[in-house]
């Protein structure tokens, strides 16, 4: 918009300000306005080039056979790591939801402010803990101390510990941000705390909690350290909880730079491509869910 053009000519208006300082400011404003889209391009360029580079390396060789073959004799098959990732993510998510959801509800509804404060701080600390340290925790606790060895179950537990604080935080926040007057009205109608949580709190908190779960999944599926330190890659899909298991990120970790053949390197790119698509899909699903539920709750937060 041409700001100077809308200002009245000299003498017409008290609002007219023709000082050099004002003119300089307006000019500066205009240039910054032009610069911002450019800076935005600079910011998203790495992401775009990443998407392009991985897609270019992965897509030409990606085929249905590569995605589905579970043959242990092929080096260009992703079936085993896909199944492994799916199984690890399913169980780890269930565990993380169990810990996170109950922890979050307990913190928001039942704990005293002081104790809740400590719990929240611990959760924040856990989110800030580098995943490699959590991986070591998993290695010493589950692999060695519990004696589970490098196994599916050790990886699942370590990953679920990594995902829990994300779900915990959103569940806690979702329940504490239920409008106070709604909570009081439910309890004032004679709802027991559990009835309030199930009938009123959960429907209101649900979209946020679901967002937290999908976010935790998107972060968890891309984790490498907690998995490589607690599991060992298998040539077959896991058949017991103590089996070896291959996670997609493990494939990247082991194959990307060190692998002797370009075939294995290509496999790493394909795994990366799959992860990228998964994370994008999870994020889109989060958006769709929260939009859908926001409509239903419209008018509640007046």
């Amino acid at each position, binding site marked *: 918009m041409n700001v100077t053009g809308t200002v009245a000519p000299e003498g017409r208006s008290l609002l007219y300000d023709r000082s050099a300082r004002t003119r300089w400011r307006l000019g500066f404003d205009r240039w910054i306005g032009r610069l911002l889209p450019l800076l935005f391009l600079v910011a998203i360029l790495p992401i775009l080039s990443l998407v392009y580079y991985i897609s270019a390396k992965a897509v030409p060789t990606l085929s249905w056979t590569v995605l589905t073959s579970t043959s242990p004799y092929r080096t260009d098959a992703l079936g085993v790591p896909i199944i492994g990732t799916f199984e690890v993510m399913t169980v780890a998510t269930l565990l993380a939801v169990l810990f996170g959801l109950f922890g979050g509800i307990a913190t928001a509804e039942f704990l005293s402010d002081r104790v809740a404060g400590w719990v929240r701080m611990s959760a924040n600390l856990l989110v800030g803990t580098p995943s490699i340290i959590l991986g070591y925790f998993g290695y010493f606790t589950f692999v060695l101390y519990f004696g589970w060895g490098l196994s599916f179950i050790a990886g699942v537990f370590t990953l679920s510990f990594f995902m829990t604080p994300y779900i915990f935080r959103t569940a806690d926040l979702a329940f504490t941000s239920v409008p106070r*007057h709604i909570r009081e*009205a439910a309890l*004032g*109608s004679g709802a*027991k705390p559990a009835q309030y949580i199930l009938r009123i709190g959960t429907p209101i908190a649900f979209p946020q909690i679901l967002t937290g779960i999908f976010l935790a999944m998107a972060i968890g599926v891309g984790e490498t350290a907690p998995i490589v330190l607690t599991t060992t890659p298998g040539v077959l899909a896991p058949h017991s909880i103590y089996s070896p298991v291959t996670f997609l990120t493990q494939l990247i970790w082991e194959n990307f730079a060190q692998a002797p053949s370009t075939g294995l390197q290509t496999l790493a790119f394909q795994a990366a491509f799959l992860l990228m698509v998964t994370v994008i899909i999870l994020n889109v699903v989060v958006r769709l869910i929260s939009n859908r539920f926001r409509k*239903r709750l419209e008018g509640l937060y007046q």
Partner: protein
Amino acid sequence: MSDAAPTPHEPPILNVQGLSVLAKDRKILDNVTLDFPGHSLTAVVGPSGCGKTTFVRTLNRMVELTPGLRVTGKVNYAGQNIYAREVNPVMVRRRIGMVFQRPTVFPMSIFENAAFGLRLVHESEDVIDRAVTESLVRAGLWDEVKTDLDRSALSLSGGQQQRLCIARALAVNPKVLLLDEPTSALDPAATQRVEQTMERLKQEIVLVLVTHNVSQAARVSDRVAFLHTGHLIEVGATADILERPKNPLTEQFITGRFG
């Protein structure tokens, strides 16, 4: 305005004896003793900060949801002190309903909002159907919503939402209904509808209305209790209190010299 004085022989369903509420550093309510006779509307009035909202929240133990407050004294409901050790506050709140300053409808259908209290005690569908209809009629909302009970309650106007909250409280058939400034968020037309509802209801149950609005107390109440800095200054028939107040503080308040 009704001049009908409460019949002295009818034992009050609700009465308060020596009730005090203590916060960390001060007394919010100081030794309040008050009867609520049947079939009447008692308006609790007073300047802001006088403790009237805290007072009404002690009558069904809602006050316990605010951390850091201590309640001493007795609130007797049907002859039983609701603060006795063996009394479950959930059960108290199921008998003594409450309506709040702001409409507090839940994000569900109109029908389910009215049915909320009955679902908590797992009533049968037949009972719920009948009770929902009856309570919506009693709250004066039935004619406006009878054709779309399945619509979201959030789509109702503020005044309709408030009457739905009254219906929700009535559905469990309480003998006492507490109203904490129920019209302070409503426009004049909606206020009038809620006041009509209160006038009808006071024929059937005990109503306790907290209001900062003296003219509202004059319009709908049978008795007025005047609270000032946590003390019960004066209580009596509405006409007596508003036209011939005994205490100078009461007179100053009703003539609008503070509030």
